[in-house]
């Protein structure tokens, strides 16, 4: 890993699956497939007009959430973004309450109060998606502070995009974590766009990782389409955090297949079909399946089973969600305050 300031680029020459056994690979694979299936189904339901509100899909970036979450325990905390389904699913969120929330039903993670941008599950350390760009970063620093304060060995990990690295909350949170030497990992999912604005129009740097130097924070860049590479990079950062060596910024170069919001590209084109196709050629799930098969670590059947089980889980959850009752209006003002 790079020293404070410097960054070690490993994009492209990703490590092979060597050293990773079938169990670890299948774990990464399952996390990614669960995200892919959940998001694809959510997108389908939205296109069908069945889901209220906004939907920021994670499809394409699965390797980041999968690789990162594989380094955490349920005791570790994460904060997420508007594009948060992938983080929740990879951290272990169940399909039933996730779909139920998207439908705005009582069995949803927020009992229909929050919606897609506020899904959370305290029992697995998922401190919530967030509708405000950058707002999750200081909160993660606070969660890390709690672990430091209690010395409970836990850490926090926060996800943010290339666009979010331009907002003040990122700057303040990164500096605060560095100064207080807190156990937090900043994972930047650089998918090249902030809504419809390409990175080169919202910052002059190529690598968000280079911003870590401003806080005396070490950083690392990894291939965000390679779950193994992401896991290795995040593991180094997590180890530093657990060892009391403070925060690290990990940048994963990745891409979203769908539009900023929803599935299909709206109105003006802001990126080319060629660009999208080029990234899809390096699809994270296909990459892992092909590599593992080539190295003979995992049989194709095992992967197929994951897909099957996941699809079944998703079908069950969607049925469950649609059968779940709508919230009772008489309960509207509940939970505004704790008593």
């Amino acid at each position: 890993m790079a020293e404070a300031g410097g960054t070690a680029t490993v994009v492209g020459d990703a490590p092979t699956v060597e050293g990773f056994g079938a169990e670890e690979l299948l774990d990464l694979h399952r996390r990614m497939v669960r995200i892919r299936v959940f998001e694809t189904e959510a997108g389908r339901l939205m296109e069908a007009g069945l889901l209220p509100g906004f939907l920021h899909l994670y499809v394409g970036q699965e390797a980041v959430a999968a690789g990162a979450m594989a380094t955490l325990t349920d005791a570790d905390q994460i904060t997420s973004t508007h594009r948060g389904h992938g983080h929740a699913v990879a951290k272990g969120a169940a399909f039933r309450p996730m779909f139920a929330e998207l439908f705005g039903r009582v069995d949803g993670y927020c009992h229909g109060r929050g919606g897609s941008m506020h899904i959370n599950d305290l029992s697995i350390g998922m401190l919530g998606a967030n509708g405000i760009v950058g707002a999750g970063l200081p909160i993660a620093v606070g969660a890390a502070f709690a672990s430091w304060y209690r010395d409970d060995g836990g850490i926090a990990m926060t996800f943010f995009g290339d666009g979010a690295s331009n907002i003040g909350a990122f700057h303040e949170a990164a500096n605060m974590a560095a100064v207080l030497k807190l156990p937090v990992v900043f994972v930047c999912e650089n998918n090249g766009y902030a809504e419809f604005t390409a990175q080169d129009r919202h910052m002059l740097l190529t690598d968000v990782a280079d911003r870590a130097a401003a806080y005396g924070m070490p950083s690392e860049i990894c291939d965000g389409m390679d779950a193994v590479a992401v896991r290795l990079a995040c593991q180094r950062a997590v180890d530093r955090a657990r060892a009391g060596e403070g925060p690290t910024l990990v940048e994963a170069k990745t891409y979203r297949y769908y539009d900023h919001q929803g599935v299909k590209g709206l109105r003006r084109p802001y990126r080319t079909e060629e660009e999208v196709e080029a990234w899809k050629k390096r699809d994270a799930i296909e990459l892992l399946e092909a590599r593992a098969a080539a190295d003979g670590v995992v049989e194709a059947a095992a992967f197929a089973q994951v897909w099957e089980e996941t699809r079944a889980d998703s079908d069950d959850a969607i049925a469950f969600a649609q059968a779940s009752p709508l919230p009772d209006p008489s309960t509207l003002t509940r939970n505004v305050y704790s008593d």
Partner: protein
Amino acid sequence: MAVRELTYVKAYNEALHQVMHEDESVFVVGEDVAGYGGVFRMYDGLLEEYGARRMIDTPISEMAIVGLGVGAASRGLRPVVDIMFMDFLAVCLDQVVNQAAKMKFMFGGEVRVPMVVTVASGAGLSAGAQHSQSLEAWLAHTPGLKVAMPSSAHDAKGLMVSAVRDDNPVIMMLNKKLLGAKGDVPEEIYAVPFGEAATLREGSDVTVVALGRMAVEAAAAADQLTGEGISVEVIDPRTVQPLDTDTIVASARRTNRVVVVHEAVTFGGLGAEIAAQIQDVAFDHLDAPVMRVGAPFAPVPFSPALENVYVPDRGRIADACRRILARG
């Protein structure tokens, strides 16, 4: 004057086309306002017509976006700053309330800050607690700011023209649920003056003062109540800072009963200010307390099942009118 139907958002957009044509010092700055035309299509066609010098896409940096507006305005330009969702004012409020609003007064009077900050406000789209708020009460309580809340395509254009021509910081609240609502809009440029309420319905039994989209609901409630033989006067203040107290009070003196409606939570909302002013100056004319209709004291819920009862509508407004009349 040629008049035709336009949507609320197209009317706002037309105002910009015309003021930018009229005044070379007007420019637009914000996230995805140029290349994409704004996430709500508010800025469609402006990049093509006025070019990249006057249509500025920015990083996600609201504090710097508003600050850029404050600095440019203090130098004599007329920035139109887009902050997308009104809820995002919370990440850049310092530049709005501590800088733009106070600069003229605390500097001693010389400077002018002719800046418009456009935000999309309001609930009803299942956008959740952080994308649905109506925060006019914060801004109208801040000396130095003006706040416009158009309820029709006609006013979206006319109030925006006034906002851009105004030499003070103006918060332009466009209601998300009205963006696609159609209405008659004159082709040429025209200004709807600030501080002049519109009487949407004339009536004699009860006055309903309704802000933003609630004015549309109030008008619908009035039409419905006419059938029940209840005559409702509907007043849309159009701007809440300045507030046209005279028109409101004059109506209250005639009908002797007033209901105030807004999307924001009732507690601490502007309905309280309007009620307080009415009971103060029309005390002896009131046959009943001024009644307030607003959202319950909770964040905006996501599920339509909850949001539909959370946001006031024509039904609740009509009920309020019946109740205030039922009272002795």
